[in-house]
């Protein structure tokens, strides 16, 4: 689960990490009021969207005084922000974070994530802050410092000191840095995060350390035990079909192609998308109905696919283990009563109760193109597009 910059900063602030003074605003007027409350001088107005590359896209503006903030907020709010990370459709900005400007001395990088291979949390730090860390890693790998956290004892103070001195920080700065790393680790561990990133972590001209930008991504699997964190989820940033699918415990991801897919199992669902491409077309979506989805859930999945105007044919690929093919067949028949199936429907059922499932479909009177194997199904779906 992603969070906005302003939410990430609030959380990190509660763990003792210094952040710029600021508040979020949803209108130019409100932005001006925030600036007024913060005093005169230089401000930064930052669009709040779940994507990077905001600066280059014109979504971050430096502003002088209250009027400057009002103008900047006015130009950013409502804009369609398009960056490498948003894709060509972009995102509409509905919130801005208004902050007091900071005198930037140096920019560092600090991040924390899970290293899958070592099965440990790793802290990554670099003196090259304020840029894409992957670029730094590719160009100058020696500038990336890593400390792995022992699962039994957690982050140790000596690890923070090692990183601080390796970054070339002065002794007085090392203490401040250690406090920030520790705060980040506590935020990470106590909230089941999968990423905590401060880029840049600014050392001001006056010697203070401040998180100029912050990013927090929570582990979806941990949200059940962090209700208030889960409430920070911004549904407006998500595709409505994915939100709808989530309500039925379905995994749906919208893509660009014309063949809608309904499959049981994530690996099989990906493989189904792949075989569609192999046969010359593109999938319209990824949809995993899981191992034990109910008739209602599968019906809901069907409706989501059928509501997509891009879909010109539907491919159902079910290998029933726990999932029963007759249940899937029932769902298809039920969905067809609610939503008119105007596009060709190819159904491949294999495994548990496949015979019963096929009979249910045959007797339903619906126009269904049956297939026995995956390639037959994909071939027929692609053919049906013509």
């Amino acid at each position, binding site marked *: 689960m992603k969070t906005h910059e302003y939410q990430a900063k609030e959380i990190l602030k509660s763990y003792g990490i210094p952040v710029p003074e600021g508040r979020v605003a949803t209108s130019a007027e409100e932005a001006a009021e925030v600036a007024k409350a913060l005093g005169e001088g230089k401000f930064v107005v930052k669009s709040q969207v779940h994507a990077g590359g905001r600066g280059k896209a014109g979504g971050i503006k430096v502003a002088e005084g209250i009027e400057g903030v009002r103008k900047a907020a006015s130009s950013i709010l409502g804009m369609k922000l398009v960056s490498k990370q948003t894709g060509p459709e972009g995102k509409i900005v509905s919130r801005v974070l208004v902050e007091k400007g900071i005198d930037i001395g140096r920019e560092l990088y600090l991040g924390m994530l899970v290293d*899958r291979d070592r*099965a440990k*949390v790793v802290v990554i730090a670099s003196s090259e802050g304020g840029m894409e860390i992957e670029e730094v890693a590719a160009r100058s790998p020696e500038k990336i410092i890593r400390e792995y956290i022992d699962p039994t004892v957690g982050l140790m103070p000596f690890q923070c000191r090692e990183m601080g001195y390796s970054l070339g920080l002065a002794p007085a700065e090392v203490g401040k840095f250690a406090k920030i790393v520790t705060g980040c680790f506590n935020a990470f561990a106590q909230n089941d995060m999968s990423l905590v990133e401060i880029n840049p972590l600014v050392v001001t001209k006056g010697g203070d350390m401040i998180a100029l930008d912050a990013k927090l991504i929570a582990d979806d*699997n941990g949200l*059940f035990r962090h209700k208030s964190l889960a409430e920070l989820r911004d549904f407006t940033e998500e595709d409505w079909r994915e939100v709808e699918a989530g309500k039925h415990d379905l995994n749906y991801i919208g893509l660009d192609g014309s063949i809608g897919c309904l499959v049981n199992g*994530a*690996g099989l669902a990906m*493989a189904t998308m792949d*075989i569609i491409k192999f046969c010359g077309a593109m999938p319209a979506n990824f949809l995993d109905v899981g191992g034990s989805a109910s008739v209602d859930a599968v019906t809901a999945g069907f409706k989501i696919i059928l509501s997509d105007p891009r879909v010109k044919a539907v491919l159902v690929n079910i290998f029933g283990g726990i999932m029963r093919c007759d249940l899937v067949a029932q769902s298809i028949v039920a969905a067809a009563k609610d939503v008119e199936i105007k596009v060709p429907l190819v159904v491949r059922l*294999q495994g548990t109760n496949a015979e019963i499932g096929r009979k249910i479909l045959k007797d339903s009177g619906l126009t269904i193109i049956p297939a026995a194997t995956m390639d037959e199904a994909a071939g027929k779906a692609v053919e049906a597009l013509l």
Partner: protein
Amino acid sequence: MSIIIDSSTRVVVQGITGEAGGFHAKQMIAYGTKVVGGVTPGKGGQKFEGLPVFNTVRAAVSEAGASASCIFVPPAFAADAIMEAADAGVKVIVAITEGIPILDMIKVRSYLAERGSRLIGPNCPGIITVGECKIGIMPGDIHKKGPVGVLSRSGTLTYEAVDQLSRLNIGQTTCIGIGGDPIIGTGFVDALELFEKDGATEAVVLIGEIGGSAEEDASRFIKEKMSKPVVAFVAGRTAPEGRRMGHAGAIISGGKGTAPEKVRMLEEAGVRVAPSPAEIGSTLAAVLGKKK
């Protein structure tokens, strides 16, 4: 032979009185697995299909001689269940549960490293040694006994591959679902090592997917240490960057973990990679055919 489990393995089902645990315990018993009992805290003393239910895994080990465990416990309590089994000396722990928080799995890995238990999963369909022992949720009847080891990060895609092999009359020794999570107990390399040593396994089918570096690590191992042929399929060529494709571990991050890159490395290691998921069985058949 076979790897990890066989007809002598004694299985306890953690969560046996729950819906999923109960259903699959019955299926395992029907397959011929030696299920010796179940564990549900608070329901010790009850019976399940004539088998004893225990309050603790420790009791199941000492009183029913359990040597393996199958865990059907919800995500909030699953890590605890795995650690309980390890602490009780259970040698093979199969965790079916999907949705365990990643920080819990970090603790589990560290805990298990000191206790000598092998964990399979989590978020996996389990492991089956054909004709001898099934610990998990895979449909037993699609499997045939034969010379191919199957190794997969997926569930239903594994069944698809097994079904293709069986229809070609190419049977399997042991099939392991290692699971779709980013942090798991048994990786490709661990299992490949066992298949290489297993006298009954002549070839291996490896089913991978996007995310992480399991296939890359496997490639290195296959190149340097495997004499037996390996055929693979990697799912997710059409997966977009940065999205979690169902499995928690199936995510392309910062351009890393893509299917084409994994395929490239596997092919460089001498692995034949099926171009389509419908050709996994036929690709293996061709390789076995050439071998003879």
